[in-house]
């Protein structure tokens, strides 16, 4: 029992219950578990072989809060000492008073002066407990209350594709449409700009979401943006 044998290929789609490897040579990572000398997938995903560790990258499912994620939350309740935010996941988050603003908020102050119900706020997750109690902060660069614009929801697992390598995809759209775009890790996305441009931005994001598996997507999105905005986009290749 020294060698392990990989029974599927790297980057394969694996389904729950599928035996990925036999023998003790491999280690189970996220989305896999060990049953005696077998490693079995326990969720649908893309298999990644990282040295001796086997893990799966999820392709579907709801957003699960993770520490240090920047997300967009919606204020659903005002508490004694903070706000409750909907995070587009099974668990809501609490924004405590001390993490809400740089200025001092006195006890008993009117909290709606800072955040009103149904406001959208860009926040960062500071902690997630084992019981999935989520704490967030609004103190930090790029964390603030959103004013104007529109909110759309995208698949949380497609967020990296929408942002692109080093933000290449999202900056391409920003450049073409002059819209401000914030993509939360939870899939909630905020778009703000000229109304016509907002529509083009939303369509471009939907296009990325639907065709995320296609290679050469950046060129396709660029062609779409050039056609609809009537502008020529020059991308600088920064390395």
């Amino acid at each position, binding site marked *: 029992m020294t060698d392990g044998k990989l029974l599927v290929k790297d980057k394969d*789609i694996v*389904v*729950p*219950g*599928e*035996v990925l490897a036999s023998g003790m040579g491999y280690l189970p990572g996220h*989305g896999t*578990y060990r*049953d005696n000398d077998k490693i*079995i997938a*326990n*969720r*649908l*995903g893309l298999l990644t072989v990282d040295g001796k560790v086997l893990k799966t990258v*999820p*392709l*579907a*499912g*709801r957003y699960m809060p993770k520490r240090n994620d920047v997300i967009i939350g919606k204020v659903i309740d005002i508490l004694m000492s903070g706000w409750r935010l909907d995070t587009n996941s*099974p*668990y*809501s988050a609490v924004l405590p008073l001390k993490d809400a603003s740089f200025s001092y908020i006195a006890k008993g102050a009117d909290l709606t002066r800072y955040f009103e119900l149904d406001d959208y706020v860009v926040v960062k997750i500071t902690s997630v407990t*084992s*019981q*999935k109690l989520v704490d967030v902060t609004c103190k930090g660069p790029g964390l603030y209350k959103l004013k104007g614009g529109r909110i759309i929801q995208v698949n949380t697992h497609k967020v990296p594709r929408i942002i692109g390598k080093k933000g290449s995809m999202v900056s391409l759209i920003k450049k073409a449409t002059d819209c401000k775009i914030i993509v939360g890790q939870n899939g909630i996305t905020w778009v703000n700009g000229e109304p016509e441009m907002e529509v083009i931005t939303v369509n471009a994001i939907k296009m990325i979401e639907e065709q995320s*598996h296609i290679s050469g997507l950046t060129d396709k999105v660029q062609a779409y943006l050039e056609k609809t905005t009537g502008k020529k986009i020059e991308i600088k290749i920064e390395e």
Partner: protein
Amino acid sequence: MSSKYNKRTNDRKFDETRPIEAKAGVIKKADGSAMFRIGKTTAYAAVYGPRELHPKHMQDPKKGLLRCNYNMMPFSAEERVRPGPSRRSKEISMVTQKALLPVVNLEDYPNAVVDVFIELTETDSGSRCAGICAASIALADAGITMKDMVVSISTGIIDHQIVVDLDGEEEHITDLDVADIPIAMVPSTEEITLLQMDGKASKEELLKSIEEAKPVLKKIAETQRKALKEKYKG
């Protein structure tokens, strides 16, 4: 013991199922969904969640809740099915939940709920088994963590002859003894998660029919996996 039932009314082999078709991701709005068709029985399953559980007193801090709902459409059978929950549909919802529970890692979703809705658009016996098969594909499609995908089929014993996957016609044979035995199994561990029986059979026959169902169930498990992979093929 020789059986009077030596040829099936539908010309199938004794261990042959009706044609099976499975598809994942058929309901866009759901977090996960699947269609499972076996012969003239079609089940659709939609999974929503994990999501926040209300009412709050039902929440469990140790693990999530799996809620299953089995429903036959009014036009799914020859006789109109009265809409709304019935004694039968409540029972099947309950056994479906119990059949799926051993594989779903509900500890990952404390205080939350995973809802499974199973709708049958046409039924010709074996509907709870089709429902369970559809539900496990839908759960996997929704990205729920689970140890394995449950498979289910009904076996039958017609005058001491073990037959796999009874259809409506066989179920209604009156001049011979018919036993209908729905079975659900976790393919990797061969753990039985559902076993019901309707009719008359000896202990030996029952045990033998479970053994005979196992290879058939494993074949269905392959169909389920293929259905999920098909969705992401490109």
